[in-house]
């Protein structure tokens, strides 16, 4: 339990740090929401400063941060100037969409990476292994944006799946079953792009930890007792490789979340990505900070889940936990 407590504390400190940095950077960034208004001769400087005061933007940084912290504790996260409404409900809807995208991509990533990692570790230097190594180096070295555009281009050329939005325009009139189909088709491309980019990284890690486990003396010893190859792979080596793989889970969630911000913009998926971009362009301060905080929150949450799973899986860590009790 102490183990989980420590992780929780670390997560909270991390979030506080991220928020402080957010404030600092937005303060240093040039421009503000009211820049365009200032250029408008019909709006008097008095109106603008009144508005600034209304949103609390005339206060010093520390005061604003303190106020924001207080509202964040009430799950509020400040007020959007552009939308003229609290940030939290705005973010919440978008967050659901982002989470749908990233968890689907996460599942697909692991669905691809684990079997492929196990296979390539078992048949080292085989045809598939060489192909995977080559393909993953390629994907890793090419920017995500290029891959996204390439996938979209292919999809457009052969009309493989719809691009843009989450649903078709006639979505509301569809039956439940066709609604699900429609949503799936809209999910397909962004999920594919994310999963391809992330699998390229994850498959290498899984292969490496499987190779290490397969070469470990205990797997060699088990082989000497006549245990079948398949059993060695999936029971003996995979359970030993699970520890690094689970730590990787949190890491891969982080990768997917940051990747999704970009992919959402490119594919027109109505998640946090386009919202943050839009808010940044219009200098909608609290919306930017809120969006970043939500992303950070899920990243930290994902890592916490991985930590707890690690605790459940690995007896050595479990012991450290109980010793500390």
């Amino acid at each position, binding site marked *: 339990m102490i183990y989980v407590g420590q992780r929780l504390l670390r997560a909270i400190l991390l979030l506080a740090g991220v928020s402080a940095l957010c404030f600092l950077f937005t303060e240093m960034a040039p421009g503000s929401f009211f820049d365009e208004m200032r250029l408008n001769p019909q709006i008097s400087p008095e109106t603008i400063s009144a508005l600034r005061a209304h949103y609390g933007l005339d206060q010093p940084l520390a005061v604003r941060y303190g106020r924001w912290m207080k509202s964040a504790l009430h799950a509020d996260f400040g007020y959007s100037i552009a939308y003229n409404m609290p940030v939290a409900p705005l973010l919440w809807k978008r967050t659901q969409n982002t989470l749908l995208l990233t968890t689907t991509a996460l599942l697909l990533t692991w669905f691809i990476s684990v079997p492929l990692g196990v296979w390539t570790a078992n048949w080292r230097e085989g045809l598939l292994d060489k192909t995977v190594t080559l393909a993953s180096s390629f994907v890793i070295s090419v920017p995500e944006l290029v891959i996204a555009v390439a996938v979209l281009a292919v999809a457009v050329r052969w009309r493989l799946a719809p691009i843009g939005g989450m649903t078709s325009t006639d979505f509301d009139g569809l039956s439940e079953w066709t609604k699900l189909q429609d949503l799936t088709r809209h999910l397909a491309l962004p999920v594919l792009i994310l999963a391809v980019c992330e699998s390229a990284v994850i498959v290498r890690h899984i292969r490496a930890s499987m190779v290490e486990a397969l070469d470990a003396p205990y797997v060699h010893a088990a*082989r*000497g*007792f*006549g*245990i079948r190859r398949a*059993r060695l792979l999936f029971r*003996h080596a995979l*359970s*030993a490789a699970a520890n690094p793989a689970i730590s990787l889970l949190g890491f891969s969630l982080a990768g997917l979340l940051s990747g999704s911000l970009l992919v959402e913009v490119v594919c027109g998926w109505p998640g946090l990505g386009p919202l943050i971009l839009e808010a940044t362009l219009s200098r909608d301060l609290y919306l930017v900070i809120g969006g970043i905080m939500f992303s950070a929150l899920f990243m930290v949450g994902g890592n916490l889940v991985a930590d707890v799973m690690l605790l459940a899986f690995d*007896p050595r860590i479990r012991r450290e936990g109980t010793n500390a009790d």
Partner: protein
Amino acid sequence: MVDNSNKYLLQVHELKVTYFPANGDPVRALDGVSLDICSGEVVGILGESGCGKSTLASALLKMLPPQAKCEDGSILFRGRDLLSLPERDLRAIRGQEISLIPQDPALALNPVMTAGSQVSEVLRSHLPLNTQQRRQGVLDLLREVGFNEPQEIYSTYPHQLSGGQRQRIAIAQAVACRPALLIADEATSELDVSLQAEIVTLLSQIRRQHGTAILAISHDPVFFAGFADRMAVMYAGRIVEVASTDVIFGRPLHPYTQALVRIATSSVVTGAAKSARLPVIDGETPNPTSLPVGCRFEPRCCERMDVCSRRYPPEFMPAPLANVNCFKYGEHVD
């Protein structure tokens, strides 16, 4: 001539194994090793570090690393040549007919599997038992190797066990399917002296109860005293002397054996530096990448003769059941 092939459980004939490291010259680790083991017999392999003991143990299960090649010779187990068997048949033999107790018990157990399930895995891969029977089988085995509370041990993880306990788990795995031959590669060298004695007692007991033949490997002659029936002394990839344990300790024939035994027994008397891994004999083992033509012990031997560096000494039998490759025992005039 009597046909002895039924009497022997294992017949190793002129086995040659070479390592081909990715960088560097090939290493001839076994250079014509011949050895017979009868059912229920304990045979000890004695030799300094690097003489090829572990290579021999792995070769017997055909578990050599990929860069090693078995270049010549044969390994007959119950009349079947293991070197020509397909992997599927070998898998059925490993753990069921020949078992290898690994060298280092700290590394040989899977850190994320319970002790009991690791023993259970061996049963499951060879015997058609249901879950209940398997569990009972594991508990019986744990009791047999000396655990008084097998239930508790069943669900502990390796890191919760001591070195001696881990070695017992490894032994339980090895004997789970009642193999006819047990290979123990330095089964006790990682343990302290009192634990060593306990493990030797356990192995002797297993042999007595189940008639298991044991090929025991060690660099320490004392390990074999009161345990092995016969001993084979290895030097630089070859067996230089095979004799009963009494002969090895009482009147060793080969100058190398004499030196090993003298050092080991004198340090028992004085109690000095017993933990030193290597017996101290002047000189070094020959470079395995370029072995001499003649007797390999010649550079270190204080009884060497002219002939010794010219060709490899053939096998002589100066006493019944004692074979030695040394010119002292014949042909010394050349």
